[in-house]
């Protein structure tokens, strides 16, 4: 395995080096928070869960073995924590004001919107913001495994082999997950994409 500076840092963390741990937190906080945020859809909760991820890393530091890249190990923890959260929510469902409304005619879902009678035609900025919201909505509608694979691909530029390790599935299954996710994204975003 090629030299991984993060693995080196994590080996220091395993010996109780808090400064090395802080370096890793600074480096990975953004991708971890973004991955969790896209999974749970709430920034405050995403930060709490991301904090939990790093706390877990510190708690189980003695179990870290440099057989895989640090990021693979870290995002395996991220995925487990996200999955636990998704399961917890399934056991204790709550209604959100942001929950999309279901259209009675065709069953399609749209975010809750209140019409503004004084609204001006949307600017490019507004259209971009709308597209971003649609991307988030499309992403959150993906099955968990597809969404996680896509997020790892995007935030970490992770190679397929590493994504397969995090997802605990074969390389071909990972490619298939990502392909299906991309197809679903395309189908959902198609009406909002500029020609």
């Amino acid at each position: 395995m090629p030299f991984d500076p993060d693995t080196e840092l994590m080996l220091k963390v395993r010996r109780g080096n808090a400064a090395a741990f802080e370096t890793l937190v600074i480096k990975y906080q953004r991708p971890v928070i973004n991955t969790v945020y896209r999974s749970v859809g709430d920034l405050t909760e995403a930060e709490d869960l991301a904090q939990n991820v790093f706390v877990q890393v510190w708690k189980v530091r003695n179990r870290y073995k440099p057989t895989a890249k640090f990021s693979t190990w870290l995002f395996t923890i991220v995925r487990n924590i996200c999955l636990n959260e998704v399961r917890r929510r399934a056991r204790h469902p709550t209604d959100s004001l942001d929950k999309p409304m279901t259209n009675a005619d065709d069953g399609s879902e749209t975010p809750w919107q209140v019409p503004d009678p004084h609204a001006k035609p949307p600017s490019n900025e507004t259209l971009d913001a709308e597209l971003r919201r649609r991307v988030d909505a499309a992403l959150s509608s993906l099955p968990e495994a597809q969404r996680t694979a896509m997020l790892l691909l995007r935030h970490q530029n992770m190679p397929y082999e590493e994504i397969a390790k995090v997802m605990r599935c074969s390389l071909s299954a990972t490619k298939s997950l990502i392909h299906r996710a991309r197809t679903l994204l395309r189908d959902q975003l198609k009406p909002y994409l500029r020609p």
Partner: protein
Amino acid sequence: MLDGPAADPASAPARQHLAACPDCAAAWRDYESAWKAFLSAPEVDPSSNFTARVMSWIDGEERKQAARPWFSLIPWRWLAPATAAVMLLVATTGIWTTYQWDADQAVSQELAANLPVVQHLELLSDFDVISNLDRIAPQLDHDPIEEMLNALWNS
């Protein structure tokens, strides 16, 4: 076409097909646009005190760890099953030993019943006598110790 062997748009067969098939070309454009939209969606920024929060938790945890009394280091979770296992082992060994001891006693008693009676204990210091005990024992008809005790009693 996107699922087939020509799925890589950089490949020559894919390029030829995309150039010739407007439907596939449109589908590929949508596919690419959606992917670009996904990639360009902005990331959220962590709050400015995120690292400080994590590190403060770690510091607190380390301080708690250092201040823990010695008995908190005992793995109570494992202690109860381990104690039960040791007790079970001791009980099993005890029962087995007792059974063995009873069996040994029975054998000893059986052996003792068949041993020749020795009345002259001083003879047992003689190796030749011990070696020929079977033949000597029936010939002895008096016990010198008993005689000595009788003499003492009578005096």
